[in-house]
Structure formats: C-alpha cells, structure tokens
C-alpha cells in the first residue's frame, strides 16, 4: 500500500475506507517518552482525511481525532511485544480514514487495519487486534435487539441513540484489549453488546487471517 512504510494495510468495511502505515522501529524522537527510560514506545496518529466526511474537515487534528488516536494506542498496546523491540526505539502508526461512516465504526476499523499493518511491518505481536463498534437504540416491540454492530453514521448519530461502544479484542487469545462505552445504557444491554461484539470480532478475525495468509508471507496486505 505505502511503499515508503515498513508495513501498511488498507481496509474497507461498508462505506468506511481506512489506510494504515507503520514506520519503525526507528530512533525515538526526543519528544516521545521520558528521557531517562530507554523503553521502546508506540506512537499512534489517527486522522480523518479532509474529504472523509460529507462536511469538510480541517487539516489539523480536532479533539475527536486526538481522542481516537488515544483509543488506537490503548487498543494496540496490549498486543505489541515491547520486549522484542530494540531499546529506545519508536514505532509510528499512522491511520488515515479516507471515507468515514460514523466515528466509532471508523475507529474500530482503524484498530483492525493498524494491527494488520503492524504485523506486515514485522513488529512482534501477541495477536492481531480486531475492532468492533456498536450503537444502542431504545428497544421497541418490533425490534427485539436494540444493539447495532458497526453502525453507520445515520444509526450512530440518530436522536434516539442512547450510547455507543468501541471494543478491541485479541480473538486468538480470547482477550479484550480495549473497551470504551459512552452514553447511558443498562447493564443487560452492555452484557448483550459485549457478547455480540466479541462474536463479530471473532468472525472478522477469520476474514483478516484469510487475507493475510492469501497475500503471501510478509508481502503488503491489502
């Protein structure tokens, strides 16, 4: 995907198009981490392309993109084998959303795409990290389930939507890497959504593995 990067990946999920590029391990910039520690760092950068949304976005990162960068870091960190990285090195992850369809679903796709790019770059990982998002809508007699997985922008910004979640799972190890819940949601709804999201992560994991295996070892995954 990105010839200059050590690893890269591109992913489409519905309308969402995400691109991830991984550089490193490279010399840790003086600005990253404390100067006394020599531990390696992961640096994540999440950005919506200016043309990603119906309304044009700026070139500078806004607060939602800064928050998404942090979500991305939190989701990928548990999977990275820091002990296998050289001392005082940095791994840069740049994710660009070329077309978005709801912020939560875009972040979830970014997590999946970034973990594939990390694997493509040869960064040692415990497992791939697969992202999934959900929106909570009030239940009614004709809609038995009120959790929508990977909602579109219409669903996640619907006036009756009561909350959203972002889940990042490591399906091979059956572990959750990151979990974000927003809004006012009941306990049963959360429980139900976690089960649904884990199932979705597991099936997406199968699809991602098939793509990696089909692309040939170490070649660029697309």
């Amino acid at each position, binding site marked *: 995907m990105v010839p200059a990067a*050590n690893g890269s990946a591109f992913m489409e999920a519905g309308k969402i198009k995400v691109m991830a590029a991984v*550089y*490193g*391990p*490279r*010399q*840790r910039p*003086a600005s990253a981490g404390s*100067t006394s520690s*020599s531990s390696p760092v992961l640096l994540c950068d999440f950005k919506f392309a200016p043309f990603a949304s119906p309304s044009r976005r700026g070139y500078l990162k806004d607060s939602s993109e800064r928050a998404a960068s942090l979500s991305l870091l939190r989701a990928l960190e548990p*999977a990275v*084998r820091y002990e*296998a990285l*050289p*001392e*005082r*090195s940095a791994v840069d992850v740049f994710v660009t959303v070329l077309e978005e369809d709801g912020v939560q679903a875009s972040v979830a796709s970014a997590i999946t795409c970034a973990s594939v790019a990390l*694997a*493509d770059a*040869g*960064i*040692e*990982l*415990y*497992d*791939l990290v697969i992202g999934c998002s959900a929106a909570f809508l009030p239940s009614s007699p004709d809609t038995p389930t009120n959790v929508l997985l990977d909602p579109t922008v219409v669903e996640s910004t619907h006036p009756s939507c009561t909350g959203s979640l972002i889940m990042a799972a*490591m*399906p*091979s*190890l059956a572990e959750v890497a990151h979990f974000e819940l927003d809004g006012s949601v009941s306990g049963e709804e959360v429980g139900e959504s976690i089960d649904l999201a884990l199932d979705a992560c597991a099936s997406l994991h199968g699809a991602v*593995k098939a793509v*990696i*295996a089909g692309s*040939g*070892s*170490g*070649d660029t995954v697309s």
Partner: protein
Amino acid sequence: MATAIPGQALGNAADFAAGSGTYTRHGHVYASVIGLPKTKPKVEVVRGKDATAVPSIGAIVTGTIVRINPRWATLKVMVVESVPTSEDFQGIIRLQDVRATEKEKVRIDRSFRPGDIVRARVLSLGDARNYYLSTAENELGVVFATSLGGATMIPVSWEQMICPKTRVVEYRKCAKPE
C-alpha cells in the same frame, strides 16, 4: 505448513522450544510475526521481508559526518554492520572517543569534516537524541573523504590524508584499510 499469523498456536511448549518470531503463553507456543513456521530445531516463524536494522551496543556502523563542533562530530548512521537502515539514525562521536591514545591532544576539526564517510562502533544508546559512537580503534575512522579540491583523498598515515590533485595534506582520523 501454511503461513503463520500473530497469535496462531504452533504447538505445546513442552514439546517445542520457542525460537525467534514466537512466544510462549499458558504452556503453548504462538507465532508473533507473519511468516512460514519451522519446527526444527526450534519452533520459529521466518519472515519473508527483512527486518530493519537498528544500531545496538557494540555494533559497527557507517555513516556521514553532518556537523562538527569543538566537542563532538555528528554522524548520520546509514548502515549497521552491513545492513542499510531504512531511516537514518543520529549518533555523535565525542572528543574523548575519537582515538584511544593522547586523547587530550585530539581536535575534532583535525579528525573529521562534514561529508566524510566514517566507520564507528556504538558505545551506548547515549542521550535522548543521539547514540554515542567511538572511533578509538585502528580499523575505525574516516574511510572516505574528499579534499577541498573535490578529489577523493588517499590516507598516508593514521592521521593524514593527501589530495592526489593538489598534493595538499589534510588531517583526518583515518581507518586502517582492511
């Protein structure tokens, strides 16, 4: 065996020793990189692409001098051992690390000039910005330099190089040819 993917179980830790590209967790060996798994003599996952080179302590590195000042010379590291780096690393050769003897008489401007290609050894990871490098060995120092006249200079001693065009002698900390 088909391509292994990070997180894929490769076998029981009791039966196999975990090699490169793998890790052990809860009594099982798992892959940690994309690649082809090998089972003998250890379980390993071999990547198709080469890993990028990163300087490690004790490694011989090669690069160009980008800046000098009276206390140190800054080197842009481009090759580690014999593997080119995908991106440049910055290192410094401090005054006291230029040569092994008569350290108090060393002058940076009589040892290196910007543009020289230098071979050095990594002393330590250094400070936040720089690796600390040393040329205090016979085989380390300037391996290639051009004179003020623009010609490639020839080493005449361990601290002098001569320009074949103008016959001007310039001072360098020369590397002993191998």
